């Protein structure tokens, strides 16, 4: 049987064609591989309520992005592990994410305590590290690829309590003494450091400056010791259970001072807002959003509607005013940087995030050289008119007066603190 003769160019053409098709298919397969973003998150332990709320916000972002076709044509996928609110677990989690799970990008979990232990790994591998609510973490590391989404400003330790001390020094007559108290943990240490700087700058005499162990049960001896020093202003930096303990103890002891609060973590969430209820009246504390300012954040409603629906099911903070919008915004920054640079190159991403301004649900965001917000926007607010423990009252305007910054101010400070209880 006569065979079919094939010329060399014809065979070469077929081989090249097959190679081309193969490469094209491989390329398509690569493009279709998901973009993996890895992180640790506190899903159990003392800060799990916040961690889970942040995770919901990040998942809403992921779903929104994937509904639009993903980033650079790749669907976004999360790989995350529970850090148990324990700093000790963090290095292991990020090592696994990078070496075993081979994620494309990493972001942080929630809070200073779990961000700081991840920093050496990020620096060792030159990774862009978007972080969520770390207070002044980069002050020691000075890492040029670190970015932080909490609006504490370029000098976070100071910016954090700026509004509190501005309000204090705005009182007539000006106060002369201050008491500083906080938990033995990373965030309170940073917040107290900033408060000490303010005291020094404003000439306030520090009459009490102590920390307490996080598992303290009864805070009334601490508040009595503070009362014994007769401070005109009391600055507290605490985590949720101790925030509740300090506010309750201040009420039980009948603390007489002109201003109380500042850095209490917890009253931003529905759980503590409703549990403490009227005990919060008169407390001055930081917030990042209050319902009175809805018109200044026009796109936030869309996000909050999605978040609040999921939060009820997942049994976490049903309000979502504090952390979730910023968790979403953190991912928006990363998304916009990747889209603008069309790359996952860490150097290019870092360079772009340093230079660009980002349009997010929490407003326009620009970063300073140290990765913090270029301008601070911590709102210092005062609780008043709270009756009962109903959550609905906190969804409506009128329960929190914004004292600073000036562009968001909705009213004046009512002092002294104990008079607000009447």
């Amino acid at each position, binding site marked *: 049987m006569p065979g079919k003769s094939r010329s060399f160019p014809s065979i070469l053409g077929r081989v090249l064609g097959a190679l081309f098709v193969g490469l094209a298919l491989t390329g398509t397969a690569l493009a279709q591989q998901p973009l993996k973003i890895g992180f640790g998150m506190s*899903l*159990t*332990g*003392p800060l*799990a*309520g916040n*961690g*889970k709320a942040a995770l919901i916000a990040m998942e809403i972002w992921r779903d929104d992005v994937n509904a639009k076709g993903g980033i650079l044509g790749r669907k976004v996928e999360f790989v995350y592990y529970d850090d*148990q*609110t324990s700093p000790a677990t963090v290095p292991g989690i990020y090592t696994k994410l990078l070496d075993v799970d081979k994620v494309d990008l990493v972001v942080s979990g929630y809070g200073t305590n779990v961000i700081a232990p991840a920093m050496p790994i990020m620096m060792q591998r030159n990774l862009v590290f978007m972080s969520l609510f770390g207070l002044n973490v980069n002050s020691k590391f000075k890492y040029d690829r670190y970015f932080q989404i909490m609006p504490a400003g370029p000098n976070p330790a100071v910016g954090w309590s700026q509004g509190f001390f501005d309000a204090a020094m705005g009182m007539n007559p000006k106060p002369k003494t201050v008491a500083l108290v906080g938990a*033995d943990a990373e965030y309170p240490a940073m917040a107290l450091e900033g408060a000490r700087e303010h005291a020094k700058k404003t000439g306030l005499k520090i009459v*009490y400056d*102590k*920390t*307490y*162990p*996080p*598992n*303290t*049960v*009864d805070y*009334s*001896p*601490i508040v*009595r*010791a503070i009362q*014994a*020093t007769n401070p005109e202003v009391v600055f507290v930096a605490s985590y*949720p*259970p101790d925030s*509740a*303990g300090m506010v*309750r103890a201040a*009420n*039980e*002891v*009948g603390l007489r001072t002109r201003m109380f609060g500042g850095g209490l973590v*917890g009253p931003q*969430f529905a*759980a*503590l807002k409703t*549990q403490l209820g009227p*005990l919060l009246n008169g407390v001055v504390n930081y917030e990042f959003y209050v319902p009175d300012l809805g018109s200044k954040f026009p796109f936030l409603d869309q996000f909050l509607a999605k978040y609040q629906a999921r939060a009820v099911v*997942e*049994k*976490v*903070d049903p309000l979502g005013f504090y952390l979730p919008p910023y968790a979403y915004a953190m991912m928006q920054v990363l998304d916009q940087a990747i889209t603008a640079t069309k790359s996952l190159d860490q150097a290019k991403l870092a360079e772009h995030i340093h230079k660009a301004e980002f349009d997010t649900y929490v407003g326009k965001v620009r970063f300073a050289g140290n990765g913090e917000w270029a301008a601070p926007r911590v709102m210092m607010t005062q609780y008043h008119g709270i009756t009962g*423990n109903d959550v609905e009252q906190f969804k409506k305007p009128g329960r929190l007066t914004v004292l600073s910054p000036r562009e968001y101010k909705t009213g004046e400070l009512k002092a002294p603190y104990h008079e607000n209880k009447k």
Partner: protein
Amino acid sequence: MEVSWALLANAVIAGLLLGGFYAAMSVGISISFGMLDVVNIAHPAFIILGSYIAYIVNDRFGFDPIAVTIVLSPLFFLLGMALYRIYYVCFERRGQESLRGLAFFFGILFITEVVLILIFGVDYRMVSSRYGDVTWRLGPVDFPMRLVVPFLVSMTMVIGIQLFLTHTFFGRAVLAVAQDQLALRLMGVNPVRVKELAFALSIATAGVAGAFLIVIQPVQPAIGREFIGLVFAVCVLGGMGSIWGTLLGAFVLGLAESFTSTFFGPSWAPAVSFGLLLATLAFRPSGLLGR
């Protein structure tokens, strides 16, 4: 800071009230660890379980959280009986109770936490009660009711347990099982049954202590771990197996914490408390009232 009589009196009262709460948390450990030699490291998890039961009933029906757990303590008793039966069959009977038994209770601790997380989520929970935000004042001395009510119920419970152990046949059998199980067998009493009921009693006290905890502070599923060290410290300081010793140890730690917080700075409180524990063990290795 000027030390006034008012400050001193308040420190004493706060320390005693705190000690009363610590006694309620530790009395179960004193029974299980001190008398039965069962290292129930999951005891704080049952305290948290008690907190959540108090929370549900308070939240849904508005009942007083402490009254609820006293009424529901028979359920904790039954849970304790079942748990001891498993522990006995799987470990104690085979002579493997030391390390494997410890791992078993660690497992129970984590499983309880995870179940609570799955059911209630990870947010902090707290209860409302008529006395939660009330403070009585006697001159310059404050009596916050959220600590006074748990203190009074705790004293009743601890003294009741002591009287029960010393004035009933079953109580004496529990004390005997702590000393010599073989002798108890020779007297015709089944030590396993005695241990089962005594362990169940210790779990019942955990449920009541859980209600105290959620009245005093917000609770989340993993918060029990923070109290593991404390409950064992109270038990060892007071003397293994001594209920009066547990009460005394709890008051010593409560007063130490209150005085240190008031006069020297709260961050020193754990160091002072555990320093006292070490010093006591150095001079009295069996604890304050241990034999």
